[in-house]
């Protein structure tokens, strides 16, 4: 079997397993999986920049919240329906990612991390500054009547699950295709050796800018979807914590792998969910688990799987 066929089977199998999950798992875990799939899209967006392009951003919450607020504000103040509002969220992400990319890519390495962090904080404070429109830290609710997409009620548990699954599958397929395409190959080349890629005649800046825009847009898709699926838009999603989380998810799952972001999000979600029921020091337990995982599987779950058993894993 060719590596491509194996990858197709793996990813297709994951999607089928998630479909089956809806019919097999208890209600609580179905709800969790819907969240995890929506957030895994965010992690996949982050992975495009970090895992495949080698650019470490500490400010991706700005893209996630751009999508969320682009969607939410257009519902709240312009009276848009779920479909147009979702498109507004994506456009907000595209515009912000383009602007941030143009400015932040003038830096590299640690400076890039700091610049993205600062931009993200600026977005967070902007949301608080415009509290009369955004309701600041308190946020606002997207009512069920505004969450009807093509006649589908996204506040319904079953529709929400499958909407999250469809989105997850589309983004997984798209990122999988992306890294096989020439553009994606160049991104990987930049990650491995930027100077050599430039010497080979590729326009490194344009490719990196493209990666920032793609990554930011996918993150915005996730933010807009999350707001629509769960009915809440709030500034906490723009805080620094939500910039660190996708980094952790990708590192845990395996940077530069297609399924890694999903596995990392799944692992982290249940780590918090289970340990917080046991002790208030759950972040300590979560931290210890992360240290152990980093020690024994430094390439993340999917990365270790690829190194040891499945070198074909994309």
């Amino acid at each position, binding site marked *: 079997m060719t590596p491509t066929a194996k990858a197709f089977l793996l990813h297709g199998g994951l999607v089928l397993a998630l479909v089956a999950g809806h019919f097999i798992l*208890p209600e609580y875990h179905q709800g*969790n999986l819907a969240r995890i799939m929506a957030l895994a899209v965010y992690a996949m967006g982050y992975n495009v920049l970090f895992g495949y392009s080698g650019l470490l951003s500490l400010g991706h919450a700005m893209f996630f919240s751009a999508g969320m607020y682009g969607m939410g504000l257009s519902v709240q103040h312009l009276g848009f329906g779920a479909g147009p509002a979702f498109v507004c969220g994506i456009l907000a992400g595209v515009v912000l990612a383009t602007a941030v990319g143009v400015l932040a890519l003038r830096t590299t390495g640690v400076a890039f991390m700091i610049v993205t962090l600062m931009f993200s904080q600026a977005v967070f*404070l902007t949301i*608080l500054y415009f509290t009369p429109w955004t*309701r600041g830290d308190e946020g606002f*609710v*997207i009512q069920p009547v505004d969450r009807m997409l093509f006649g589908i009620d996204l506040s319904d548990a079953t529709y929400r699950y499958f909407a999250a699954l469809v989105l997850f599958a589309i983004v997984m397929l798209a990122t999988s295709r992306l890294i096989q395409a020439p553009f994606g190959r160049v991104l990987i080349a930049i990650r491995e050796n930027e100077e050599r890629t430039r010497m080979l005649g590729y326009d490194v800046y344009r490719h990196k800018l493209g990666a920032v825009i793609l990554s930011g847009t996918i993150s915005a898709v996730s933010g807009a979807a999350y707001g629509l699926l769960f009915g*809440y838009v709030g500034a*906490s999603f723009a805080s620094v914590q939500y910039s660190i989380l996708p980094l952790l998810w990708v590192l845990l799952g395996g940077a530069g792998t297609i399924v890694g972001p999903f596995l990392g999000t799944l692992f982290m979600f249940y780590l918090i969910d289970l340990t917080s029921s046991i002790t*208030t020091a759950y972040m300590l337990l979560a931290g210890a688990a992360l240290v152990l995982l980093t020690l024994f599987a430094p390439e993340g779950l999917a990365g270790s799987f690829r190194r040891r058993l499945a070198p074909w894993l994309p």
Partner: protein
Amino acid sequence: MTTNDKKDLLATRRDILKGAAAGAGALAATSALPGFVRYAQAQSSEPIKIGFQVHRTGIGAAYGRWYDRVTTAAAKLINDGGGINGRPVEIIAEDDGTDPKRGAEVVEKFASQHKCDIAYGTLFSHVVMGSAPRAGELKIPYFVVSEGHHVASGALNRYTLQPGICDVKSQVKSMAPFVTQNLGKKVTMIFPDYAFGHDHRDFFSAAVEANGGQIIEKIAIPPTETSFTRYFPKIPRETEVIYHVMVGPAVLTFVKEMGEFYGPNKPQIFGFIDSLEAVDLNSPGLEFLDGTYFWEGMPRYAQADQTPYDKFYRDHVGVDGNGASTADAKDVSTYAHMFGCWETLFVIKAGMEAAGYQGTGDRTKLIEAVEAMTDMAQSNEHPQGAKRFNGKTHQVFGPQYISKVEGGKLVVQHQTSIEDGLYDDEVDYTTQAL
């Protein structure tokens, strides 16, 4: 390192990972158990499960600690008295991290995994806002103890109720007459530049102007600010009253710097005790507050005319006459807010009894029973004062207390009436389908 060594090491790592996976699986199974456990006894002996969404970590942890104690004390009292409809009450607490995303997940956990009858307990407004949509979708009654205006504003849904604590709009409306009639008519407001502060700015401005006063300056302070000296020169000279509602860890610095700015010649100062909940008034730097006024939801210090209901409540929760834990005098309570947990649990009890509540199938009856409530007398169940519940807006109204700092203690100067805090309905939740 030899090849064999590497193999051994790999095997060890695999074993550890397998062990970890097995452990995680066992943990998951344990966690999933509550959803599958079935009581062997008859339905009538099963406990009524109340999911308690508590801020154990995050910015609300100080409030959460005391909300937890009050909830435990109230649940014990209810169980000692025979429970609700002959069934014991079981409090199932989950930490929401004072985070709206986690808050919503916790509500799902109550409804879908723990199979709780209701969810209850949240304080911080953003956690309520993040969680309430899921409560509505899961059709689980969600009793919040938040004092936010979000419930009565109509932003939420019919499954979300606030029957144990007044909202901020009612609080500031009822206090404005005291401020304009006793302290001064020219008011400068200092408030945090986010939703909580903006609610105060908007509601208090309207209330002051309705009472013949005037807001002459509104000073919004960014939430990230750690020093406030540059804001004080913005306070107009003709200011007669400073109204402040600063919250968070920087509040001690705020008060200290305001004291240094004014010295002994300060204007009248009126603040929200939110600024100093869980903080000892005799902390160094707070001497400046002597002679200033505070709103209190419920008087922290036992007053000379203490009601037997307040005494009963303090004794059961474990709070001394200074508002601190009887076990540790330095552990100051969040007295102005936490009574809301006590009163909400007794409203839930009364609602379940009125509805003949037997199980989750009766959730809609419970909502309707609470919506039908109106006046509640001051009692051991309502130690803060008499209440009036508005079934249409799902919001309760009650008295407020205005206290003055005298000798390091808060002494009540004025108690508002229920009528002082009433305002026109902004929503009728009873028109929404259950």
